[in-house]
């Protein structure tokens, strides 16, 4: 309560998608408990939506309509039935519930903040001692990510006390030029949240420390290949998926 005024300042930038990942996570936790801020966000989000009308008018290309309709005819809308294949094998209900719940305003994962966080975390965890410390802590949960029984594989260690995720990858060739791997945390009823991007060494190995978004407690993690810099939401089906255990 005492912090309400501080939080209230965040409603406008939240609706404008102008908070850092950490600020947004903190504010979302507050939103769950604060009807005043929820009302603010609702109103400001409509204002933000209307800002699209402020874009300078541009003549719509005539052929675009046919293109949109043509492409749509090749894809069925997701309706809670069949859809995206292997992604769903593990994460079906979660992904379908994604936009219904936290939805489209979650869409922008702020690549820049994540990259900055990644750099900061790399610097902080430079020494092997600290890495080992992170893995051996009593609060650590693990997730084994696999691609239908064959290489590559990946083990994740999530140190809840420190909010760190240590990624250990095996037999995973480095991403092609201009591409990167991206780790996602998935919680039931919410959109996948980016944990960060990474790449492997030529030998297919990597041990990297990323930061779990504050307060986020995922059920699953998954890995996709994305354009360099990562994506706001997965643009393809993950090739590695696994559930979080213990900790």
């Amino acid at each position, binding site marked *: 309560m005492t912090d309400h005024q501080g939080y209230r300042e965040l409603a406008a930038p939240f609706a404008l998608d102008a908070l850092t990942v950490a600020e947004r996570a903190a504010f979302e936790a507050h939103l769950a408990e604060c009807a005043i801020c929820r009302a603010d966000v609702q109103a400001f989000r409509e204002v933000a*939506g*209307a*800002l699209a009308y402020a874009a300078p008018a541009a003549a*719509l290309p005539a052929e675009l309509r046919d293109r949109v*309709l043509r492409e749509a005819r090749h894809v069925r809308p997701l309706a809670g039935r069949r859809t995206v294949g292997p992604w769903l094998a593990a994460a079906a209900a979660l992904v379908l519930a994604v936009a219904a719940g936290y939805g*489209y305003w979650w869409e922008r994962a702020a*690549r820049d903040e994540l990259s900055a966080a990644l750099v900061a975390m790399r610097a902080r965890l430079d020494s092997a001692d600290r890495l080992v410390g992170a893995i051996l802590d009593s609060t650590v949960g693990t997730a084994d990510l696999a691609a239908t029984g064959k290489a590559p594989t990946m083990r994740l260690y999530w140190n809840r006390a420190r909010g760190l995720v240590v990624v250990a990858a095996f037999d995973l060739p480095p991403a092609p030029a201009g591409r990167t791997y991206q780790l996602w945390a998935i919680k039931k009823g919410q959109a996948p949240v980016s944990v960060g991007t990474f790449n492997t060494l030529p030998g297919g190995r990597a041990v990297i420390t990323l930061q779990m978004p504050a307060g986020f407690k995922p059920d699953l993690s998954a890995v996709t290949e994305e354009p360099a810099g990562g994506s706001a939401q997965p643009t393809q089906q993950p090739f590695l998926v696994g559930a979080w255990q213990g900790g």
Partner: protein
Amino acid sequence: MASQSDRALVERMTAGDDRALAELYDRHASTLYALAVAIARERADAEEIVADALGQAWRTAAQFDPGRGSVAAWLATITRTRALDLVRARGRRALALERAAGQSSEGLAAPLAAAGEAPDRGVERLEARQLVGRSLAELPEPQRRVIELAYFGGLTQTEIAAELQEPLGTVKTRMRAGMEKLRGSLAQLLSREGP
């Protein structure tokens, strides 16, 4: 036939009715395309963005949640996100970011008025454009600028403060004040849009 609400169209899309998508396109594509151009600048990119965004709306229509806002706002959010992603993936800055951050104090609203209105199918949308453009133009320039940098430039408050070399607290205050004013001046539009 009485025109259906946007929401009813989205409902029909979940059943795979592509005529509903066509209708939604006719209502919103010009706004979405203008938004994509404002962010990505290249027309070919903007076409890609709008096609992708409407494809996403088509596929995920079942996930549209009216509790979170109007269909127009939903479509704009998807389009804006895709446009900013594309710009970032190309290592560029959003067009609007350069304009809004640059020497010009005109911001984005001025070119809107100066460029004149492109042919627009809907009178309501034309009114919306005019109202939003005018409301933005009436904001004190520093308030308008931080809002444009956030929405069209994709910057966080912290990045805006760095961009403008202003204290973060100043940016926060301006953003809040500007959004409050827009909330007032757009109230009529927003209540009409409804679900």
